[in-house]
């Protein structure tokens, strides 16, 4: 499991608007990489290019290369659906499928695509929910709707759903920003456990969170409205938060702007 991602010279466009320019970075396997930066700096956009989710938006396209180990995920013969089964994603707002039970939500990525034996699904559900630290809380009500859970539980359900399809990489787009501190703590603990098996990239607005959960931090910034976002610097989290190489990084993490 767990693969490395190499991004080189990535430009991202929405129509003719260049949202992100010249990003080159490496995401290490079995580690947590955090993307931080002010709103609109393109960190979520970059994250969404990593599993080809950004192209769901009409008019969105990229230039540059993104390699998963040695495979170019934008190669001509690559199917984005297969990319997404290798690189899973958790969104900002918990979004369990409202028509499905907890059980069906967890196996949605499997069951919708091919018929699977009930016993097999049962074991996937238990393993995924245990992996997301949710099993004990929901094991007696797996047939109840997923939308009946609390916000934090819903987000862990979404994580369970993402790891049920056994991805190599897990992308998280501000997974705690809609949650209270206790649920946030639960998710952060979960991230610590998940990184034993997965490569994790997390976008966060919360710098303490980046400092707590990540091994490597990338700082993005924009020069102004309408200008493209850029990667300012990327280093070990320790280094970024204690002795950043760039003035703007220091200003941002010390709260002088953004």
């Amino acid at each position: 499991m767990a693969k490395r991602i190499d991004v080189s010279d990535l430009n991202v466009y929405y129509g003719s608007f260049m949202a992100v320019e010249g990003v080159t970075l490496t995401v290490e396997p079995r580690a947590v990489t955090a993307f931080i930066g002010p709103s609109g700096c393109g960190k979520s956009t970059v994250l969404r290019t990593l599993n080809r989710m950004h192209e769901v938006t009409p008019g969105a396209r990229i230039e540059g290369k993104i390699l998963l180990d040695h495979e170019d995920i934008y190669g001509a013969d690559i199917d984005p659906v297969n990319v997404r089964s290798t690189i899973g994603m958790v969104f900002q707002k918990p979004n369990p499928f409202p028509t499905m039970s907890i059980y069906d939500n967890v196996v949605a990525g499997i069951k919708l695509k091919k018929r699977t034996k009930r016993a097999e699904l049962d074991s996937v559900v238990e393993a995924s929910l245990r992996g997301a630290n949710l099993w004990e809380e929901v094991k007696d009500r797996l047939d109840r709707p997923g939308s009946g859970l609390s916000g934090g539980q819903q987000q862990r359900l979404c994580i369970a759903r993402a790891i049920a399809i056994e991805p190599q990489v897990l992308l998280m787009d501000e997974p705690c920003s809609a949650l209270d501190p206790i649920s946030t703590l639960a998710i952060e603990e979960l991230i610590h456990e998940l990184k034993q098996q997965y490569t994790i990239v997390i976008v966060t607005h919360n710098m303490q969170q980046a400092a707590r959960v990540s091994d490597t931090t990338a700082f993005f910034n924009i020069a102004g409205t309408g200008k493209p976002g850029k990667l300012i610097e990327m280093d070990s989290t320790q280094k970024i938060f204690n002795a950043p190489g760039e003035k703007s990084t220091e200003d941002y993490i010390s709260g002088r702007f953004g």
Partner: protein
Amino acid sequence: MAISERRITDDELHELLAQRRLPRWSGLAIAAASIAGAILLALTTAVSGNAGTAIVAFLLYVGLQTGISFRIEGRRYAVDRLASTFLVSALVAALVPLVSILLTVLIRGLNAFSVGFLTSTMRNVSPRRPGGGILHALIGTIEQVAIAALIGIPLGVLAAVYLVEYGNRSRLARAVSFFVDVMTGIPSIVAGLFVYTALILTLGLPRSGFAAAISLAILMIPVVVRSTEEMLRLVPNELREASYALAVPKYLTILRIVIPTASTGIITGAMLAVARVTGETAPLLLTTFLTQSTNANPFVGPQASLPTYVWDQIGSGTTASIDRAWAGALALILLVMILNLSARLIARASRVK
């Protein structure tokens, strides 16, 4: 500084917060006074007649209430009462014709309505004699509407899926959307004429229940497309993205996530479209002949239907046939009501939890 230093006494505070209101019984009292005033006016002056008196009473009520309220409660409450009065009056004015129609149909329809009315046909029944029934028309209407629904609902839902999920505001999608809007306002007789000229005269399709069903389907499609489109657009994009992120292909995302999430609204819209065409008369007159006996085969020969039955019975003009027309109208309203209720039940059963 200057603001916070000013102290107000307890009395001043009460003055500031309190509000004089009219007592609860004032509404009834003012209404009674207005009616009394209007009657007095009717007795003493030329303004007379029930309608005139009622209008005078209403105007008196509005004027008195607003005036008194303005004096005692102030401008805001006076305007509030005035606006509330107009809102309630508008509601009553809108409900009066509805209730009146239902009551009239119920009262006049019950003259000829019975179990026998539902289970017999007009075969060998003289227009002048009472008796006979609507069985043949009921069978016709149910078959025609069912065929129309079988054609119209899938076409409409699929068109809406194309517009919302695949069209992406392309030129074709915008053109389709525009024509759907135009078709929503199409007079039903035009749909009947289309089937008559294009299918019956040109292609030689026999006049039949099936031809009628096609004209009804044409009327249903825009309604189904419109309502389904609205419902699909209400499905949050996050759900589609969540599904894509689980590597679920687009077609499965639409079939298993988007449509089930929107199903309540889609079903309601479809059933409303069905209910709407159930009462259509004009296209049926052009596409299927009248008949007084049962024809269960919608593909061959003339077939009766409830709306044309009512039309036919009114045309005969005898007391017995007009009674039958009202009873037929009552049966039609009951049928539409049953369709609506079942739509609600289905929608409730499939509601998103």
